[in-house]
């Protein structure tokens, strides 16, 4: 079957959260990222095959997601699915993808399980970030500042758990201790009672092992209860859109890891401004990552002259990634795409020169440090050989 493109179309699907707590992270933004990638690819390579893009809302429900994926693979001839934020959904979709032997380039989910317990190196690439990478930066930096006792506010599902776990390890590794954690449901409406528990714990740092709307509301409630007065709140998965929503006054001085910042260099600025013109907002690491992933995939198809899974995966792993999102990125055998991450600090309102000028990049974490080393991999497929 190699050397052939199924139905002469390469069909790419963006499966994301269109209306939920995470819609601000990926959602429409990711779709735009994918569109831009396709346009750029066509412009540059004038491919002979047709390229189609479909997208759907998985409502953060594992069953909705995997049903959609299964249907796409079975009846729509979809070749590759991308974004798939929300780790629960991602793991479910990974299973379907492996079963149907297709490709998922996951640019949205955070759980390290995708490249460890639930890894599927021949079908799944974990492209943008993961909890290990997110945890390390602040875990080290904050603890080193002497704020060495932590308490976690954890979203009660795969992502939250593994973010909590990885940060805990980072904190311990740097001589800090963890006093406890409280689990809250996805998209909880009122965080005050959880924050009271955090407050009662007397920990110096309250780590928010949640994302999107949940993070925003946690931080708001923290302010209401005067938590911020004598404790430091650290958002573990925070991106520029959250900062934009909360505003600098509330968030100044926060530290966290991002996989992308629009204002790094000429290339990122140029890409981001194009994106901004369509989305009325700067891209965070998800849309940018999706752009990069789709582009990389199409190039691989072009090069391999087929959309056959094995061939394309081989090609993608063989070629390094260089675009607006990643410099010298490479896909490891366990399916982890490693690239530089950035430890950023939120500027004081005064220091912000223009809209969306929010970060001071404290440190560029080289890919090999940022991500979990192969040596620690718990991925059976890789361990075998």
């Amino acid at each position, binding site marked *: 079957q190699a050397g052939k493109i199924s139905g002469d179309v390469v069909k790419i699907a963006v499966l994301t959260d269109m209306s939920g707590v995470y819609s601000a992270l990926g959602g429409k933004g990711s779709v735009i990222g994918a569109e831009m990638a396709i346009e750029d690819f066509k412009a540059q390579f004038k491919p002979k095959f047709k390229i189609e893009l479909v997208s759907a809302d998985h409502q953060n429900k594992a069953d909705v997601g995997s049903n959609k994926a299964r249907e796409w693979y079975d009846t729509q001839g979809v070749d590759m699915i991308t974004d798939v934020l929300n780790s629960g959904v991602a793991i479910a979709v990974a299973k379907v993808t492996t079963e149907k032997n297709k490709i998922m380039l996951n640019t949205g989910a955070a759980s390290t399980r995708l490249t460890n317990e639930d890894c599927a190196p021949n079908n799944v690439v974990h492209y943008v970030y993961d909890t290990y990478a997110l945890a390390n930066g602040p875990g080290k930096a904050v603890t080193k500042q002497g704020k060495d006792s932590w308490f976690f506010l954890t979203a009660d599902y795969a992502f939250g758990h593994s973010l909590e776990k990885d940060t805990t390890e980072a904190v311990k590794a740097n001589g800090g201790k963890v006093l406890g954690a409280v689990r809250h449901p996805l998209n909880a409406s*009122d965080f005050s009672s959880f924050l009271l528990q955090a407050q009662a714990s007397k920990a110096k740092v309250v780590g928010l092992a949640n994302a999107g709307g949940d993070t925003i509301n946690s931080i*708001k409630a923290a302010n209401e209860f005067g938590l911020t007065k004598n404790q430091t709140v650290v958002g573990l998965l925070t991106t520029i859109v959250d900062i934009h929503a909360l505003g600098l006054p509330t968030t100044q001085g926060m530290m966290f890891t991002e996989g992308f910042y629009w204002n790094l260099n000429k290339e990122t600025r140029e890409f981001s401004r194009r994106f901004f013109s369509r989305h009325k907002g700067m891209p965070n690491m998800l849309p940018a990552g999706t752009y990069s992933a789709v582009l990389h995939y199409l190039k691989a198809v072009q090069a391999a002259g087929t959309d056959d899974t094995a061939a394309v995966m081989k090609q993608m792993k063989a070629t390094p990634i260089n675009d607006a999102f990643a410099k010298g990125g490479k896909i490891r055998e366990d399916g982890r795409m490693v690239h530089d991450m950035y430890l950023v600090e939120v500027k004081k309102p005064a220091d912000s020169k223009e809209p969306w000028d929010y970060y001071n990049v404290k440190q560029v974490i080289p890919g090999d440090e940022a991500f979990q080393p192969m040596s620690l991999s718990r991925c059976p497929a890789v361990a075998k050989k």
Partner: protein
Amino acid sequence: MTEIFGVPIQALFGQLMLGLVNGSFYAVLSLGLAVIFGMLNIINFAHGALYMAGAMLAWMGLEYLGIGYWWMLVLAPIAVGLIGIVIERLMLRWLYKLDHLYGLLLTFGLALMIEGLFRDLYGVAGQPYSIPEEFSGAFNLGFMFLPKYRAWVVVASLTVCLFTWYMIEKTRLGAYLRAATENPQLTQAFGINVPLMVMLTYGFGVGLAGFAGVLAAPASQVGPLMGSNLIIIVFAVVVIGGMGSILGSVVTGLGLGIIEGMTKVFWPEASSTVVFMIMAVVLMIRPAGLFGREK
């Protein structure tokens, strides 16, 4: 001393206070349900959705028209009440002769519609609604922070409950309401304008829900799902209290709120289910509910 039963006093009172706050929401909502049930014999499943609508209206008022919290606290309930009146006129009206279950089903359908509509417009992620500056900040009671706004919520809802209770239990209107509940035709034949009463009652009942919604807006985030999660607990509250008495539903509401809060301190895992467990127990020992008077 900073600990009670090995629990930091701050957390204890904090949760107690939050319990009281939730309790007053339960109270206002179950009160509205009871009033409506008393008159129309309908369990208003749309109650949660209309509570959400109240909050959403408050948010929209601020977002689009720049109308502040205090005005919305008056306007939103009225608006919701009017929505209710329309619903009653156009739909519920036709169901009174049928099995009461149809009322439940219809309002369930409405709940889905209202919820889905707001979902489609604003997504499920909550909208921020900031606390009115009069009440921003908190009293520092030394052993705990008492956010001013939460205190206000309790006061406001209790006042409303008391007012309603007086109207229905202590005035002639109350007798009419109960009579019309049982035998509308005959009651009308005595010269009482029942259809009007029914309409206004429903309007008032859902108006209460709207009021609770506005109260809730600054306390929690304003989102399409805020109602549906709450309403089921309120149902349990209603079953525990028994539809019979107004005061009953208020007391039960507050009580359960507090119990829930305490559970969060001493047995967090059970905090989300404790109300239902209590309901199960009550059903076993007193099927009609604590304050229920049923044939």
